[in-house]
């Protein structure tokens, strides 16, 4: 294991950086898209609710790999040339945004409906009461599950290995076939993933306990 770190340290660190970069970009956009659809799901207008429901159900029930491969295979074939990293990040964003939308929606719904009614009766509009009264309270409930979604996102970013995204998993495969020591290479890759996810996971558990 140590010899793997010594011989291929640079490649592994590069992969780690790409994994982190892809996860952060995907998290940023997935948060925006996800919160947007979550709010659409609770507006009074039925049409918007149905649109949001369809979006969420479709992306939740199709495997991440199918979405990613679609962007890797079909988009370059017909529309525009994009790299594996970009198509992987787009797939990851769409997939995670559906889960984040579900999380944020359950956060919004866990806020007492009296809050919304009170805000409306003091003269705020729907969007104002959403923005100033409901969302700030929902945010507090949502933090631990959102953290879990981020951990998931980091783990799911390994799908970039399928589309030559040069992430940690991809580099791991390259090193494994180069060094012929698959077992210790994958153990090293596992340790690097754990460095990203395990502290976050324990911190989220601590937050959950404190908020509960």
């Amino acid at each position, binding site marked *: 294991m140590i010899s793997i770190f010594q011989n291929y340290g640079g490649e592994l660190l590069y992969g780690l950086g790409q994994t982190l970069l892809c996860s952060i970009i995907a998290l940023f956009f997935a948060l925006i898209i996800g919160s947007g659809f979550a709010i659409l799901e609770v507006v009074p207008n039925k049409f918007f609710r149905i649109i949001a429901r369809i979006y969420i*159900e*479709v992306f*939740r*029930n*199709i*495997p*991440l*790999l*199918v979405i990613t*491969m*679609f962007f890797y*295979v*079909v988009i370059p*074939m017909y529309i525009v040339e994009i790299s594996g990293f970009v198509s992987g990040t787009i797939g990851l964003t769409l997939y995670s945004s559906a889960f984040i939308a579900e*999380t944020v929606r*359950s956060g919004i719904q866990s806020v007492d409906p009296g809050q919304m009614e009170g805000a409306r009766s003091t003269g705020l509009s729907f969007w104002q009461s959403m923005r100033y009264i409901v969302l700030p309270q929902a945010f507090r409930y949502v933090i*631990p*599950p959102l953290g*879990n*979604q981020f*951990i*998931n996102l980091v*783990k*799911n*970013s*390994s*799908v970039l*290995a*399928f589309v030559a995204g040069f992430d940690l*998993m991809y580099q*791991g*495969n390259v090193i*494994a076939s180069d060094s012929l*020591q*698959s*077992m210790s*290479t*994958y*153990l090293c*890759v*596992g340790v690097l*993933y*754990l460095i990203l*996810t*395990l502290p976050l*996971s*324990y911190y989220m558990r601590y937050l*959950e306990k404190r908020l509960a």
Partner: protein
Amino acid sequence: MLTILGAYSWINIRFLLEGAWVTILVSVLSIILSYIFGVILGVIRYVQIKYFSAIVGFLIDIIRNLPLILIIFFTYFGLPNIGFKPDPIWASVIAMAVFESAMVAEIVRAGIASIPVGQMEGARANGLSYWQALRYIILPQAIKNMIPAIVSQFISLVKDTSLATIIVLPDLMNHAQIIYGQNTNYTIPMFIALAVMYFIVCYSLSLLSRYLEHRLGTAKNKGAEEAEIVAQETQR
């Protein structure tokens, strides 16, 4: 238009269905294994046997925080280094079972923890032993609360079987790739077929979970709150 019709010729559909069969086979085998081991591990983690539970808990945390693809690679390419060489189907079943039983174990632990302490105290006061109380009083209530979370875990298991194409498991994804590899005109139709097939399986599972929620009455009564807690804590 003709190419689309060609993509859905009977030979291609049959080839896809063969892949779907492998997907379902692998999913069902791993669901059974991961349910059994998940409940056992979850109970071990809950009952606090000295040292043992802590070690099991730490191992569960490690496996939960690794990508499934890594575990699949490790099983298929890593284990042969120490002389154990499973074929693609068994390698993916083993990898999925290891990963998902860690996930189920966490759900089970949260589910048991959501049962009020009074239940255990009452059972003990009635003369049941600790294990009897756990088996007959706590677990039945806990499993009722856990069902939505467990079913949604199994939905993601079905989706995750597609990752095993990387070790050439002849599943739905792999067969679709073979078809559009032979004729690139079939690419979009194949992706539509893939999306539809996975969607039908996963969405009907999620309808099943919703139906079970209502049937077991967790949707309306006090149990709903606990079920919600379990679902939130383990939403991964």
